[in-house]
């Protein structure tokens, strides 16, 4: 056939498209769901943790990893505890922690043995007998563990609280913050609708003076460790315009509900904020609310 028209290719400007392509894939080292990855302070290695094992990788080597923690029982029938989160110490490249579904934290030193099955430290708070219920274990399961920037403390998140631990004190946390204690009387409903298994993260601010974590109804909470003040804020388009200052929210726990308060029963449990992040040095935070990402900053005077 004859070519009747000749078209010169034309350059058309388009919006920038961002496409993610994997640069390296570290495969075939995990049998169970991966819950954490943590870059080491040596910037050469990192670890990945699944429900039962933790592996150490070198960034340059994708086909080999070292298994450093293995809690899989010989007989799976005896399984009663899984790993829920893990993180390297911010300064000591041989030290890491991992948390469990039974509310415990183990600190391990890789110099002691190739397989760190024996912890160097074991953090667990004794159970409060007055609060005991069939849900005690589930709500004690730690969903996130984070070292402070200083490396002196660790913070853990369980279903109802955030706890700060001093690395030198294993028998109880030094601080406990109630995220949404009004849910304590609703645990059965939350078990029924599976919300009790939600895994919330927690973060430190750059100076380790404020900690933040998410909750339901697009709420997130901040706790100032020094002043002991806390605030509840909401990440939703309906309630704030860009550049508007966020208004503190309050959940009414019974009795008369004030005008701006929300009652526990009106909370939307499908709107959960599981992931948040704090800029390492500035007061800028990122909050993930379902399929929206919010970025907030301190009001500029």
């Amino acid at each position, binding site marked *: 056939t004859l070519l009747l028209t000749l078209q010169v290719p034309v350059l058309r400007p388009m919006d920038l498209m961002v496409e993610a392509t994997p640069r390296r894939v570290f495969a075939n080292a995990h049998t169970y769901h991966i819950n954490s990855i943590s870059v080491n302070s040596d910037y050469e290695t990192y670890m990945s943790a699944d429900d039962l094992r933790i592996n150490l990788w070198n960034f340059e080597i994708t086909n080999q990893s070292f298994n450093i923690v293995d809690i899989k029982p010989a007989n799976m029938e005896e399984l009663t505890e899984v790993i829920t989160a893990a993180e390297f110490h911010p300064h000591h490249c041989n030290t890491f922690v991992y948390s469990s579904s039974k509310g415990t934290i183990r600190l391990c030193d890789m110099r002691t043995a190739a397989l760190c099955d024996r912890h160097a430290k074991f953090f667990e708070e004794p159970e409060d007998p007055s609060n005991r219920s069939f849900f005690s274990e589930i709500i004690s399961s730690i969903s996130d563990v984070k070292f402070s920037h200083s490396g002196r403390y660790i913070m853990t998140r369980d279903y109802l609280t955030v706890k700060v631990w001093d690395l030198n004190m294993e028998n109880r946390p030094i601080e406990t913050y109630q995220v949404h204690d009004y849910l304590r009387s609703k645990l059965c409903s939350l*078990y029924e*609708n599976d919300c009790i298994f939600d895994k919330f993260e927690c973060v430190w601010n750059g100076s380790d003076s404020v900690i933040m974590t998410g909750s339901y109804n697009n709420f997130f909470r901040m706790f100032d460790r020094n002043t002991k003040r806390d605030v509840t804020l909401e990440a939703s388009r309906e309630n704030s315009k860009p550049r508007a200052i966020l208004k503190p929210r309050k959940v009414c726990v019974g009795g008369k509900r004030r005008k701006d308060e929300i009652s526990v029963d009106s909370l939307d449990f499908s709107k959960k904020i599981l992931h948040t992040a704090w800029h390492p040095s500035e007061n800028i935070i990122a909050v993930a609310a379902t399929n929206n990402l919010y970025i907030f900053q301190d009001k500029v005077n």
Partner: protein
Amino acid sequence: MFVRGLKRKCFDGEEDIEGTLAGIKAIPSYNLQRQSLLDMSLVKLQLCHMLVEPNLCRSVLIANTVRQIQEEMTQDGTWQMINTPSTGQASLDRLVSTDILCRSSRDQAEGKHVPAYGTFNKDFESDQAPDSSETMSTASSVQTPRNLQSNVWEMENPQENKGNFQKSLDQIFETLENKSPNSVEDLFSEVDNSYYDLDTMLTGMMSNTKMGHCDSLETFSSPTNTASNSNCKSDLNDLDHIVEILVES
């Protein structure tokens, strides 16, 4: 699910009182609440089991809760099961999920929860140490919650209970561990069509993010607190029984 039926019978003061006489306030007995929690947990475990990618942490936590309830019930002496005449050990060889899920979805469709809890409640006159022989005297008329367990574990004594219970938990964990594309096919090859009925229940459960159905169970107090309710309860039981008869006729 189970809890919806429960709420209709036992309510706190703020709920509507339609359908019940004189608004007698009653909190479900501790044993009843515990039983309901156990049943709910078992169904959850089976549903975990059905997923292509089961969540191990969730399964472990639910299984631990079930074990905890079972241990407490064994200590209480309330862990007594009906002797079923029929299949014996055979039902354990089948996937536990098939049996429980078929039964619970069928029974839910037939709306059998309310009468089941009515007769069940009657068996527990006090919460302290129910006489185990009395407990199962109305076994033949007890429906969903008891059948759930009796078909899973053929119980003769608490020790055996524990063994059989452990075995069904083991099955769940083994299958979770061995899960691979092939085994998923095997899993579902045994499924009968009653699974499709489950879809509605499943979607209902998964999307049910509002609370409210468990309200009556929120008053889940320790056993020592519920002794005072026994008088109220027996009155309520009589009333319920009458109401059931009226409704069903």
